[in-house]
């Protein structure tokens, strides 16, 4: 009985375990199974209900595909009828390196002693979207790219460019790509993502495309041979088609674009080696150039400097070569040339000017003959080396002894120009005339201002003294003038004005008089009486009349007269 029960438990456990494993699954899918070499597709690995599933996968696709993005991982959880399921996805962006029938192998994953295996997938990769596009039988894509080389064959060192053309039937809003800074076998002169490309329209198999050169790449090969220029992935943002949308469709309500990854196809360029007949004057210049040579002066003094200017004008790899070394006659100290660049990269070539300035210092006198300045470049147009030669006029170096006598008469007008400037003309008349033993310190005229200043100091000191004296005598002056001031003030009182104002003026005149006279209220019995009357009127303005005020005024004046008599 016990044995039967234990068997049942074992069978139940196995059944339960199997039931648990039943939902576990790993799959590999691709976004497309038929596509072109320019198209970017996505390979996705889905792990269902597997704990600790990997976050990255070794794709092992290096021969046939290039991984251009990823891994991108995401996990989803869902509850259905009380049962939870989890899905983990790992995906990569890839592009095909080859065309034809390609196989994505079966991937084997060993997770917690369990082995999971995906199915192999067969893919059909066509060479070019454009080729497909030209095939009327094929479905026309809404967007594809084309790589256009300005030259299919170049010489080593010859600058060329690639243009990335976008063919689109969709409404493109924006586009981006990673900048390209290095490329084996080439100098990357410039990678330019155009902000406002020129566009044109073209109908291919009945479908209208807008064509725009959205990027360009300028390269200078450093090696010869056949080179495959790699594919270039772009991300294009296009406006979504006008179907009705809701907030639920687009959580970022209002975002109305979608991104499309697209790849510009690779192309091949043949880089030819340069002929071996290049002389020593060849330093890598390739293009079409002209040369101008000039010497700053034809005559200089011993130990003076002059400059030899060499200017190259033209089109070619102006950025990528140095000027060949030149031989200068003995007796000159020659410094490293100062290089000035005035060229721009236009289309596939640099065009403009490049100049070298050699500073020469003559260490001994004499007449010096210079070798012709020579410069060799390779002309791709003529497919041969061309050497430019330019003579340099002789340079005369004058010793210091030769300059005995007139500095200017020894030089020709041209040579005077060498000195760049002449002295200024003489003065036609005299201004201030001084004694030859003139000493500004002893000149009294220079010190006049000091005397004036000292006078002002005295002036201000005197003012200060007067002020102080006046301040000390102020009480005395006021005492003396008290009657006069009081009478003046009383006279100025206008009887017709407001009674209260008249009262205040009477009070002011009377109080000021008492203050100036330095009198106190108890000096005269009537003083307190008048002050009390004023105070009473102040607190009872309704009682005031002009008659009373006149009476008060007369009383005050009478009292003042009395005080004066005392």
């Amino acid at each position: 009985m016990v044995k039967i029960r234990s068997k049942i438990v074992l069978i139940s456990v196995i059944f339960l375990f199997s039931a648990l494993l039943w939902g576990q699954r790993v799959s590999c899918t691709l976004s497309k199974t038929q596509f072109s070499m320019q198209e970017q597709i996505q390979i996705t690995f889905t792990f269902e209900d597997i704990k600790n599933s990997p976050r990255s996968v070794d794709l092992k696709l290096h021969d046939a595909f290039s991984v251009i993005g990823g891994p991108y991982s995401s996990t989803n959880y869902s509850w259905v009828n009380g049962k939870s399921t989890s899905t983990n996805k790992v995906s990569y962006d890839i592009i095909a390196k080859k065309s034809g029938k390609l196989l994505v192998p079966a991937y084997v994953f060993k997770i917690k002693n369990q082995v999971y295996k995906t199915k192999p997938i067969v893919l059909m990769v066509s060479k070019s979207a454009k080729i497909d596009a030209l095939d009327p039988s094929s479905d026309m894509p809404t967007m594809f790219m084309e790589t256009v080389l300005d030259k299919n064959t170049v010489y080593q060192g010859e600058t060329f460019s690639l243009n990335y053309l976008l063919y689109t039937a969709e409404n493109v809003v924006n586009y981006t790509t990673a900048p390209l800074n290095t490329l084996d076998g080439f100098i990357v002169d410039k990678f330019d993502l155009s902000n406002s490309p020129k566009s044109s329209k073209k109908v291919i198999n009945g479908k209208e495309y807008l064509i725009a050169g959205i990027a360009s790449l300028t390269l200078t090969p450093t090696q010869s041979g056949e080179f495959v220029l790699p594919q270039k992935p772009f991300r294009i943002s296009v406006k979504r088609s006008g179907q009705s949308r809701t907030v639920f469709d687009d959580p970022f309500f209002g975002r109305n674009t979608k991104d499309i990854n697209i790849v510009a196809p690779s192309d091949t360029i043949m880089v030819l080696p340069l002929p071996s007949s290049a002389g020593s004057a060849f330093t890598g210049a390739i293009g079409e150039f002209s040369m101008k040579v000039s010497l700053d002066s034809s005559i200089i003094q011993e130990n003076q400097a002059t400059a030899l200017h060499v200017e190259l004008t033209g089109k070619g790899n102006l950025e990528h070569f140095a000027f060949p070394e030149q031989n200068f006659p003995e007796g000159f100290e020659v410094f490293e040339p100062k290089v000035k660049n005035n060229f721009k990269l236009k289309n596939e070539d640099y065009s403009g000017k490049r100049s070298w300035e050699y500073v020469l210092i003559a260490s001994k006198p004499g007449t010096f003959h210079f070798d012709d300045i020579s410069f060799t470049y390779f002309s791709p147009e003529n497919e041969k080396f061309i050497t430019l030669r330019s003579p340099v006029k002789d340079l005369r170096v004058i010793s210091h002894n030769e300059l005995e006598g007139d500095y200017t008469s020894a030089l020709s007008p041209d040579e005077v120009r060498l000195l760049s400037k002449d002295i200024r003309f003489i003065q036609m008349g005299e201004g201030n005339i001084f004694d030859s033993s003139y000493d500004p310190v002893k000149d009294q005229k220079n010190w006049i201002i000091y005397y004036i200043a000292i006078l002002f100091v005295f002036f201000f000191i005197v003012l200060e003294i007067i002020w102080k004296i006046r301040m000390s005598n102020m009480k005395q002056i006021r005492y003396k003038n008290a009657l006069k001031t009081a009478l003046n003030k009383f006279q100025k009182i206008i009887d017709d004005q407001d009674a209260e104002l008249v009262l205040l003026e009477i009070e002011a005149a009377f109080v000021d008089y008492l203050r100036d006279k330095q009198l106190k209220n108890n000096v005269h019995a009537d003083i307190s009486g008048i002050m009390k009357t004023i105070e009473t009127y102040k607190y009872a303005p309704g009682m005031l009349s002009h008659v009373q005020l006149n009476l008060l005024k007369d009383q005050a004046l009478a009292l003042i007269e009395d005080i004066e008599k005392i």
Partner: protein
Amino acid sequence: MKRVITMSIVLLLCLGSLTLAADVDRDQLFKQGVSAYVGEDYQHAIAIFHQLEESKEVSWELYYNLGNSYYRNGELGNAIRYWEKAKILAPSGSDIDHNLLIAEKHLIDKVVLPDMFPLFKWYKQMQRQLSLSVSIQLIGALFLILILVLGFIGRASRRKSKNHKATYITVLSVFLVLIILFTSITIDTAQRRKNEKYAIILERSVEILSEPTEDAIVLFILHEGSKVRVNKNIEDLWSNISYFDDKVGWISRSAIGEIEE
């Protein structure tokens, strides 16, 4: 009494007319010098301008013209010497500066000095541009303005019974800084003029010797136009000079022309 007054007036008029006549003569002579220069007779121009210089009355224009005449005559040393003399009387003369700059191009001895500290450079420039007379007058003017401003502030504060202490201190500080600055420039310039004598090498090439004797060791060679500082003189025969302070030696006095005698 009337006779005395009449005599005095006549005497004054005579003296005045004599002075006027002397001025007219000087003016004519100066113009002759200019004519000689314009006619490219530089030696004659030099002779005339020297004649004016010997009258003990000088002007920066006279020195300047002498400098120009010497330059045209191929005497760079003397040209620089007279332009330097003109510069003492008119430090801000742009023509003098220009000509000295041109002359500098002909100098064989060239010393490139390191850049000065900006504040020191500015001080030196001020010193070069201000004549002693101008800087004395400038300090006086600042002093006068300061007194007037302070006086008026004091009076104003009394009348309005307001305290102008802050204004007082500000004005005083600003003026004192300016006065101290210009006073130091002036004292420095006056001291230099008094103690430092400069001369220009007049010979094409001259040996600077270790001792004031003909058979002394040659220390270094200087060329025409170089400016040297005269430390001391032994009669009219030898001068001890220093070139940019670090090179010191003896030179025959005839080979140099002092800027200020």
